[in-house]
């Protein structure tokens, strides 16, 4: 029974992967870019799922990690010439990682809503600092920089084309997914899920719950930072808007819409939200976020397991 599910799953996975690989060759540039963005936001949402879906902790501060990944990459690309992809990744991940460590240390002492608010506050602190420290971060205007070439400078450096950029992003997202999936199914991941199910019992059994939570937050923050780096490379700018709370809120929306605890669900959720927003912005040019918000509220009430959960139930009939 499980094998049949696994086969069906991986077949579906491969089909979609194939479609995503072929996409940039057939789609017009606008939609190609749109798709790449879905992947990047999906990665951000997936990183948040580690906390919401597997550890049972809602973070409202993921914009902090995302933004720092973005600014870190920007810093690398501006400070070091020639612009170096790996350095951008390193700087971005380091920035996000340090932030994650800091947030993890304070926020994991608290549960539920206090945790969520603390993560929100920390991301707002980041926002205020970035917004006001104009000399370092460009303040309101942010930073602009050039995209690095794919490859090592000096050895092989091919500038990104829209297609290769898309494939690069796709590769990173897929690898992240596989890696996170592996981690969540490992003993470590099992403990996280046990914390979500019943934290008191997990602690009673003898697990150092707070330590696990800290690692979970760091893992989540790093992958969120990775998404930020990708965004910086694709768009070649970093702006404080991306550190603002709204990004964190949208991340949670992607999670809920797609289905928490599934890793792929959030990517689907991101896609659904962005497509919905795009479609509605054509009919309701100004007020399009209102129906989007209403759809979201309706989903929270009537479809709490998200699109993926709903599809799963429907297929199992």
């Amino acid at each position, binding site marked *: 029974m499980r094998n049949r599910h696994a086969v069906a799953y991986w077949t579906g996975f491969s089909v979609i992967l194939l479609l995503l690989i072929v996409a940039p060759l057939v789609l017009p540039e606008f939609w190609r870019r749109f798709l790449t963005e879905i992947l990047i936001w999906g990665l951000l949402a997936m990183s948040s799922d580690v906390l919401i879906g597997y550890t049972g902790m*809602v973070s409202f501060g993921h914009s902090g990690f995302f933004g720092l990944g973005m600014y870190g990459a920007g810093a690398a690309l501006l400070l070091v010439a020639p612009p170096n992809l790996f350095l951008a990744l390193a700087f971005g991940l380091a920035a996000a990682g340090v932030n994650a460590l800091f947030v993890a240390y*304070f926020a994991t*002492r*608290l549960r*539920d*809503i*206090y945790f*969520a*608010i*603390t993560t*929100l*506050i920390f991301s*707002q*602190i980041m926002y*205020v600092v970035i*917004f*006001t420290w104009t000399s370092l971060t460009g303040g309101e205007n942010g930073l602009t920089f050039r995209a690095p070439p794919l490859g090592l400078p000096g050895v092989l450096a091919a500038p990104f084309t829209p297609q290769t950029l898309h494939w690069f992003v796709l590769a990173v997202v897929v690898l992240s997914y596989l890696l996170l999936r592996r981690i969540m199914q490992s003993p470590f991941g099992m403990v996280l899920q046990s914390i979500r199910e019943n934290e008191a019992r997990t602690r009673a059994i003898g697990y150092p719950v707070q330590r696990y939570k800290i690692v979970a937050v760091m893992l989540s923050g790093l992958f969120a930072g990775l998404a930020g780096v990708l965004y910086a490379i694709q768009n070649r700018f970093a702006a404080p808007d991306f550190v603002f*709370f709204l990004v964190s*809120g949208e991340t*949670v*929306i992607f999670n*809920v819409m797609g289905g928490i605890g599934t890793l792929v669900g959030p990517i689907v959720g991101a896609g659904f939200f962005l497509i919905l927003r795009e479609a509605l912005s054509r009919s309701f040019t*100004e*007020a399009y*976020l*209102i129906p*989007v*918000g*209403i759809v*979201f*509220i309706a989903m*929270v*009430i009537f479809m*709490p397991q998200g699109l993926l959960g709903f599809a799963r139930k429907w297929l199992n009939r």
Partner: protein
Amino acid sequence: MQDLLDIILIQTVNGVVTGMILALVASGLTLIFGIMDVVNFAHGELFMLGAYLGVVVFATTGSFWLALLFATLIVALLGAALQIVTLRPLIGRDPLTTILATFGVSLVLQNYALWQFGPVARNIREPITSHFTLFYLEYPWYRIAIAALSAGIIGSLWLFLKYGRYGIWIRATIQDRVMAQAMGIPVPWVYTAVFAIGAGMAAASGVLFGPLVGVNHAMGLDWILKAFIVVVVGGMGNLGGSILASIFVSLMEAYASIWVSPAQAVIASFVVLILTLLFRPTGLFVPTPK
């Protein structure tokens, strides 16, 4: 030196004034949380809508006091409707869902305001424009008036809870909602009423505060963050604590803005929160930690 003392004096009064408004916002939030375990993410937007409605009613009638009255009533009704439509279906579910639902509501309300009123800030004229002398400095009467009004509204709430017939229902429900139901108290309607009261109070704060800054669709977030901080620092569900915390946090911010810009002064409140969470997580002003 004299100048610094002057500024500190003025900032103290400013801090208390802002603190009273924040107390009005936070009381509603605390009440809602205390009675139904709902963290109302949309509370800031109710504040913002109150401010906008104040602008509209004022523009139509020219009376600030009518603006205050109508904005409060309309938003209270809106709050009741929101609670019935979006929160009642979620009773008994994971608390995460109410946070998400109210977050969704805040998105809808914010964008509604953006759509209806546009992105440019609006102004309400202060109803009292004269100044008085505070010691030897000039200080606007209006600010004192709003502090007094806020205190009055909070005081009325306290009296209602303590002596009003429905106040007893509310207090009983806060303590033991199951037994309250077993005593015939229609708890679902108590929830709706409390949500409406909280919403009304947020709206009133918005109207009172409106003349001090511009009114714009995004003003909610700042206030909800501050209100959250206050609710935590004051002790979740503790009305008296949240009032003290409001004044404390606002004073900290007022003093901080002597030296840094207001945008950065906000960090003062964050620091207070972090320190509270580290050392007195049940609340700074809660008499004995549970």
